[in-house]
């Protein structure tokens, strides 16, 4: 029997279904399924919308204009206008928005993805990782469109762009790993505790305000230094990896600076750790997901 199983390589072995080491191989085998799911989502989302991909521009621009209106007219008097350099508020907000929206869309759709695709999970065998991963991949399309819009507006307003923008190829993978790790973890949890779906909504709304999305990190820093807020709150604030990630995006795209390295390192470590935990927990649970659907 021992010789037998060495000679014949099984196509499917129930024992290897919970092995974390198998994940990369399984994903390579299932890459076409992953692309299929991503394409299916993209096509289905935009095919029958008259404005199609324009929505990927309209949405952040509208939100940006709204926030711009709120901060420049409504709260102008109350909030001390810090020195934000020459970078206009419009691009600052847009830059925060597109990356935040990518993150929020990824995490919320990944969390619900297993339920959304339950007819696949209940009926077919394939590495389950592809489902939350596809949810983290397809919003990249929106992000790209938003990013191009941002660059166009930035060029119109500033007429210059720095080579340091290339840092996004380091920062974005960190954001991607963070989203993917969180997505895997939350989707696996959501199968067992449907409360997590609600928690994610609350958490993302909280995060939207508690991360430097529509205001720069400097505002928080300044507020704490001015003693209008306690100092420890700032340290708590930057524990959120999104604070560093979003700030670094602003630094490299809008300011043309090299990213803030401690932030970069910290967010990278947190993201890698979260991704690993996500993969581990997901893999240990994934083979029996169908029992809970």
């Amino acid at each position, binding site marked *: 029997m021992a010789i*037998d*199983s060495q000679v*014949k*390589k*099984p*196509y*499917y*072995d*129930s*024992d290897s*279904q*919970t092995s974390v080491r198998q994940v990369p191989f399984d994903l390579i085998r299932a890459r*076409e*399924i992953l692309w*299929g*799911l991503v*394409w*299916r989502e993209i*096509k*289905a989302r935009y*095919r*029958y919308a008259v404005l199609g991909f324009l929505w990927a521009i309209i949405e952040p621009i509208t939100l940006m204009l709204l926030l711009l209106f709120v901060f420049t007219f409504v709260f102008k008097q109350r909030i001390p206008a810090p020195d934000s350099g020459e970078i206009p508020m419009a691009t600052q907000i847009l830059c925060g928005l597109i990356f935040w929206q990518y993150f929020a869309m990824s995490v919320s759709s990944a969390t619900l993805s297993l339920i959304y*695709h339950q*007819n*696949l*999970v*209940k*009926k*077919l*065998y*394939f590495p389950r990782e592809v489902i939350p991963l596809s949810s983290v991949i397809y919003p990249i399309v929106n992000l790209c469109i938003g990013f191009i819009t941002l660059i166009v507006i930035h060029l119109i307003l500033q007429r210059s762009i720095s080579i340091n923008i290339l840092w996004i190829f380091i920062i974005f993978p960190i954001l991607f790993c963070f989203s993917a790790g969180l997505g895997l973890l939350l989707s696996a949890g959501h199968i*067992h*505790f*449907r*409360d997590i779906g609600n928690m994610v909504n609350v958490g993302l709304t909280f995060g939207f305000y508690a991360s430097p999305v529509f205001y720069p990190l400097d505002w928080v820093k300044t507020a704490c230094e001015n003693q209008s807020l306690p100092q420890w709150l700032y340290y708590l604030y930057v524990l959120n990896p999104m604070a560093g990630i979003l700030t670094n995006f602003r630094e490299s795209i809008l300011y043309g600076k090299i990213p803030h390295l401690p932030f970069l390192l910290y967010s990278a470590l947190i993201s890698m750790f979260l991704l690993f935990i996500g993969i581990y927990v997901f893999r240990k649970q994934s*083979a*029996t*997901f*169908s*029992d*809970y659907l």
Partner: protein
Amino acid sequence: MDDAIIEIKNIVKEYPLRRGFRDLRGQGGVLDWIRGNKTEKFRALDNITFDIYRGETVGIIGKNGSGKSTLLKIISGVTLPTEGRVLVYGRVASLLELGAGFHPLLTGRENIYLNAGLLGMRRAQVDEVIEQIIDFSGIREFIDQPVDTYSSGMYVRIGFAVASFVNPDIFIVDEVLSVGDEEFQRKCRLRIGELREQGKTIVFVSHDLGTINALCNRVFLLDRGKLIDRGSVSGTIDFYLRQIGRAEGIHTISNISKDFEAIFSHGKVSLFYEKREITSPLGIEGVTVHLQQAHTSSMGDWLVTERQDQSLIAQGSLYRLPFQWEWNVNIQDNILTLSPSFSLLKEIQIQALEFRIFLPEIYNQFFYAGHEGKFTDILPGNLGWVPMVTPKVGETSAFLLSATDDYPLLKIGYETNEPGLSITIGNTDYIGRSRFISCHLQIPETNNFQMSKLYSIGKLKITLATKQQYEEWKSAWIQQRTIFLKDIELRLGEGFIEFIHEKSMKPITQAVHFHAQFRLQGMWFLSQTFLWQAPYKQDNKWIFEGESQRFPISLKWEFLPDANNNLLNTKVWLTINEDLVLEEYNLSIGLIYDYQNWETQLESGIFSEIPPEQVEYRHLNNDYHPSDYIIATGKDLPQVQLFTKQKNMFRMTAINPEYSLSARIIQAIATPEQKSVFHLSKGTHLLFDGGVKFKIGDEQN
């Protein structure tokens, strides 16, 4: 085992309680967890071990909730066993997931790619077969429309088409045959047959025990998560039927020596000889035809009301018809008798009743109505039932012969006083893969059966016969239809007579033999196409009557043999029910090719060689005046003379027919007086008065 494709080792599957707010408290909740109490889990599969080998068709049966679906899920990898291990050495596709993962907003084509990808196909592989998939689905014109515009039927079609072309090693089929229309189900069954033929492994779950029985090599029965294997397929199924409390519809009877057994099971009778099943899995069934719909007896609720060792009485009401069977089955020595009767619960029109006996393919020969025939092979392309013989009036029994001695010779007959019984013998389609013998009792429309009255409709008799009995029966059959002259035997066939030279026992007639033909409305009708009754004897005369199936005419042949003179006096009458224009008619004898010379009252000639390119009848006469006789002679062959007593009535003609018949024909062609046709009034007309005379060897010259 080397060729095990699925190995299932000590599998246990437990479903934990569902976690949620409520379950944090109470039994199985957090407090129990803290206290260390173990909670009761639902055990769906309990220590199951088996292997499935390459190329097998395995059925899984069991009650609802017995763990069938869980087992399939574990095999296909959808879920994991709690304990134990599953190894699968091949790609699995399940036909139950027709259209799983279809996105309603994507087009049919896009969904094919996606679905095939989920079933494990690479995009390039799909590119190769995409056109075939579209063709198979049969909805090419809608293929670029989003699938949410499809009907559910189209959805299933496209899903099935994809699953068919994914080409995995293992197919899992779960109740798929119960969805879709008749046509689709047939297509599925056919496809499953093909897959089996290609050596694919099929795991099959169904409640349709008949299909399981017909398709599977092995059957596993699941009972509350435990595996029960009763060896044979039918053994397991019988056990299952008992288990699900349908045992009241099952009873086994046998003869005293216990070598001939019959198992009655819910409207189906299976026969066993020396413990070997001699009927095919389809057994023996009754069929009620109502409004063109056939209702088989197994589609009913049955109850065995009387159980004896050698006999039983069972009552069954059909599910979809207010019709109640009562079967009285008994075995005496080597004869099984099934005496059916029925009653109606409502007054409905019954069109026909039928008994079908299904035998395995090993039965490959039959003898029916004087015809000894061989069954053709049942090929994968056979989609319908293929009859081997056409029914003959009055022929109510047949012999079935098997290729090996293990399967006894069977005589199957139906005894009834009702007219309208016909027997058909043939092959079923490829899925059934059986020989069938159908005893079909047509019920006239005028027949009105009263409600709740028991009508008895004859007896089906199945006899285990010996070779000797068969030979005796066969020769008796021949005797009954043979007229013996001194040197010639005349064998009465269906509307023709074959001449056999007794000395050599070789036929001297060929092709059409001795027959009559008519031209009506510009078309020729041979007496062979009439429906003939068995010949009977009246004094010294043989009477042979047949009826046209197309025109209101019937023929009566009267033969008066004069054995010593080798003479057969023949009279032919035609009875018509309405006035009729008979354009032409003749009596002909098709002789073997070796006949060389012919001679009439007026002239003589030779039968010339027939060139291969000849495709029509060619008259050899020069003188076409009516005459009294025509003689054909050949070397070492009896001289045959066709003569008439009616003066100036027939033109005696010698004919070389088309090459392929390889025959010589002598013919008496009726010549209408003056008029070019015969106007016949209603009544009986003498068409021919004359006969055939033979002379042997030294008598000649």
